[in-house]
């Protein structure tokens, strides 16, 4: 299991040439090999969604994907959301609506919500709730997350 392959992960537009074992998860590679620790690991079995990143436009659980499977794909993580000092509307909405407390699940929720809204900007409130129900948060009781995502969705639609 220890034989490593050389791959390149493209994270937020930057290439990271790394050597990984085939079994190394994308989450571990992003965090440990590429130093992008904003992607968090909460369960390592694909339930909590804290490790959600966007791979080729689609939100995925990076704990359920191997790093080698993501080679050559465009990976976006929470570190890439803001443009310099200017927060993404989703980040701003989370702040304005108190959509985070400890902040551990937050990167996963941000990437999940951004990923879905970029693909389906006109998603219904009901479907959006279903999407958000795929990640776990233990602090907020979700209500402020839902408010924040709805507010950001409206803003993202307006910006089209």
């Amino acid at each position: 299991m220890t034989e490593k392959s050389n791959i390149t992960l493209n994270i937020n537009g930057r290439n990271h040439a790394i050597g990984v074992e085939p079994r190394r998860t994308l989450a571990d590679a992003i965090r440990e090999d590429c130093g992008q620790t904003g992607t968090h690991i909460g369960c390592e079995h694909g339930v909590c969604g804290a490790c959600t990143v966007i791979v080729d436009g689609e939100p995925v659980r990076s704990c359920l994907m191997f790093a080698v499977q993501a080679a050559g794909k465009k990976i976006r993580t929470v570190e890439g959301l803001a443009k310099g000092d200017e927060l993404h509307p989703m980040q701003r909405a989370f702040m304005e609506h108190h959509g985070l407390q400890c902040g551990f699940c937050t990167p996963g929720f941000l990437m999940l919500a951004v990923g879905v809204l970029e693909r389906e900007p006109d998603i219904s409130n009901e479907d959006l709730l279903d999407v958000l129900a795929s990640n776990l948060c233990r602090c907020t009781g979700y209500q402020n997350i839902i408010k924040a995502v709805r507010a950001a969705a409206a803003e993202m639609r307006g910006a089209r």
Partner: protein
Amino acid sequence: MGKGFIGRSVPRLEDRPLLEGRGRFAADISFPDQLHMRVVRSSHAHGKIMSIDADAARAMPGVHAIWTAQNVTEIPPIDFRLTPVKGLEPYRQRVLATERVRYVGEPVAVIFAESAYLAEDAAEQVVVEVEELPVVLRATQKPAEFAPSLTTEPVVIRKGYGDVDAAFKTAHGVVELELSIGRHSGVPMETRGAIARYDAARDMLEMYGAAKVPHWNRDQIARLLGRAPASVNLFEGHVGGGFGIRGELYPEDVLVCAAALRFKRPVKWIEDRREHLLAANHSRQQTHRIRAAIDRAGRILAIDDDFFHDQGAYVRTHGATVPDLAAAMLPGPYRVPAYRAAGHIRLTNKTPGGTYRAPGRFESTFVRERLLDAIAAKVKIDTVEVRRRNLIASAEMPYTLGLDTLGTKIVYDSGDYARLLDKALAGISWEKTQAQLKKRRAAGERVGLGLAMFVEKSGLGPSDLVRIAVEPSGEIEVVTGSASVGQGMETVLAQICADTLGVDYARVRIIHGQTDRIEQGGGAYASRVTVMTGEATRRAAAALREMALNVAAGLMQTTPAALDIANGEITRKDRTGASMQIGDVALAMSKNSERLIAEGFYEYSHMVYPYGLHIAQLRVDAETGGVAIERYLVAYDIGRAVNPMLIEGQIVGGVAQGLGGALYEEFLYDDNGEPLCVNFADYLMPTANEIPRVEIILTEDAPSPLNPLGLKGAGEAGANAVGAAIAAAIDDALQMPGAVTQLPVSPQRLKAIMQKKV
């Protein structure tokens, strides 16, 4: 004074790095040349360790060392932080199992390897041979042998006052119930983690990933490893949720520190989720056998409660805290003329227990409010009326309960319980809603409304120290030994500092959880930070303001009384003449080698007692046994709301956790003590689909008379009464008073209840 930050829902100072992915959680900390620790855990619930064969593991590439109990014999068991009741000492946990294993998940050996993957590979090759012993899985079963001459019931907590037996003899009636609360826990989204390193140049041991109580843990680690406390430092980074369980001192924390000292290399341990569900503190599991003596009108004459607390395999840092609080807080907002509680602490072969948000109160509120509902049914009055007849009146405040807990006498400092009840009933349109639900029930729906009242406790002492300094740049730094578990304490303390000093809260930087920055700290638990650290902050800021005005008066050739500070600017109150920035005062002082710095120390031996009630409206699905919450209201008197947005956030989050414990979450075991819920597919935490919008009525009718700002705590109100309110609402939906006797009300249990009716 300042611009009035207290009372405003200003945005949090904490948010930005967390939103940008620039937090520093435990797993984000790494040091060059670090070793990774992996724990080999018992797969047996109870047995004698016959042998541990680690040869194959030791021979694997990248494995640096493997320890069993033999390698750490000099490390004493981990001590009690709270409620160290006599008789519990032999039940403390050692960092690695010695001779016996007592629960599935108990650390038996540890691997140190060059990578986390290699450490995990090696752990799988360690063979632990165990000769099985009989398991104890129920706290209600007859106590068994824990060890020679020790039983599984080390202590019975006894509390009470008044003549209970006389009251039962002369009572008009007696109501008797057996009620159980399921085993569940805080389960923060960040698992535990600790990274230790030894700096030989300074002979300093450092641990990162600290949380909740860094100063106490620093002192304990020093004691356990035979070092001077001054040669150990703990550093708190971001903490991914606390809820009582995180930040207590666990075996793994001690092991990484011991290893860093021994190997002279950094050692990192990050728990995985399965380990977390097996090894971090569980909580809540109790069975109560409770009786109330009542008069003809349903007034309580006496309560007698005999309860069994399932402590799990060892007594950890919380000592007897949970059963002690359950016994002490059970009377709640009601007048109980005579009271007796016996809490049996029972060891079982399950994961050890500790506190979880509203410890002892989620449990005792469920029990007490079930009792009130049963009294109402017995004397045929409604559930609101029975509470009105028993509530302590505001004229009786402060109310001395006649019990003590956590080393303090319980004196409800202020409160108007009936007034909050009125507000809540108006808020939910109680009678109108009841009439609507009755109609829907007549049409075949199973819908119901239930309420539950409670008294919370907060602001546990004994003391807190805060140091505030103003730099010549005008930056303000508040240093506290308190801790952040994600609750927003930085913002709240900045608001209190800003108002007292006369500056913008956004210029205030809060340093917390760093043992090298301040010599003491109470930490973050028991809803204490806003009250204890908040008042210490106010005192420090007031002293700082006085110092700044004195110095500025000299510089501005006037008297301090003629000056004011607003938004960091010192001006004459009559608005004439020049002004100066508060940083300029610090700059002027620095020229005389002085600093604009002040301390605030707050010591108090009583807690403060906020109070509230929950109302749940729900629908039971007869087919599936599922429960859908239609409305949920929390009314809560906070005394003084520093940041209403954050308080509401605490309440909603607490309700979500409470709903987990009321309906979904439970650590189940099979008959051999094998845990059945060790992942998120089997341990069911609520998602966005399960949590309703929570209506909140936040009042400030009863500020605490015990501190100048009138502060009370907010952390645990949301969780406290959920089990009780949900139980009452399910009873109502099924029109079966007293139907719910056990939490969580899982679909299976609810279907069983409904079958009873037929």
